[in-house]
């Protein structure tokens, strides 16, 4: 199993602030996904990135895949309380069937 590290583990911010969450691996990803999970629910897919250097935007969320495809970041602009949740990155390596998940970043946005 490949090790996939997320940072920070916890983040508590005020509404309107910006934040960035990081996901790193020592190995090259075939593709990488970001998920958001709310308490008591399953993770929901936000985005998939495949190409090194790729940037994708989803409203106030910006996802970036590193040029070497070993790291990714999620940036949230002007965070809102509705952004509160657990953010998980998950990477696929080679042609394997399964994903490896990071332990997640727990985000709390207070009004």
């Amino acid at each position, binding site marked *: 199993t490949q090790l996939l590290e997320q940072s920070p583990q916890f983040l508590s911010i005020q509404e309107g602030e910006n934040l960035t969450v990081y996901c790193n691996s020592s190995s090259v990803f075939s593709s990488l*996904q970001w998920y958001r999970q709310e308490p*008591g629910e*399953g*993770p929901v*897919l936000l985005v*998939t990135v495949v190409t090194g250097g790729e940037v994708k935007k989803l409203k106030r969320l910006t996802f970036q895949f590193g040029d070497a495809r070993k790291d990714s970041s999620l940036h949230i602009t002007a965070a809102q309380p509705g952004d509160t949740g657990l953010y*998980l990155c*998950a990477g696929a390596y080679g042609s394997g069937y*399964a994903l490896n998940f990071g332990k997640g970043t727990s985000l709390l946005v207070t009004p």
Partner: protein
Amino acid sequence: DVKVTQSSRYLVKRTGEKVFLECVQDMDHENMFWYRQDPGLGLRLIYFSYDVKMKEKGDIPEGYSVSREKKERFSLILESASTNQTSMYLCASRGQGSKYEQFFGPGTRLTVL
């Protein structure tokens, strides 16, 4: 939209009981997965299946078995539940050409007393 459903949201069982967790997906996906999620440990893969009657061990298969008799259904079985199997269990499915995007069910919170 892909829909993955799990048989129970909450389940309480006693040590030594046999426990069945069922997962059904409605998108004709070939691949299905069972994870458990624990605080500080993240999601860990228990078993996955890439076709009917086919199964592969994940990272933590000990104490679990699975069954996939039909394409849409993937069952996780705890032969003799133990307290260390208290956890959130998540089922997921993925189509063959979907670049590894997995779709998750709502989870089953299992407590073993």
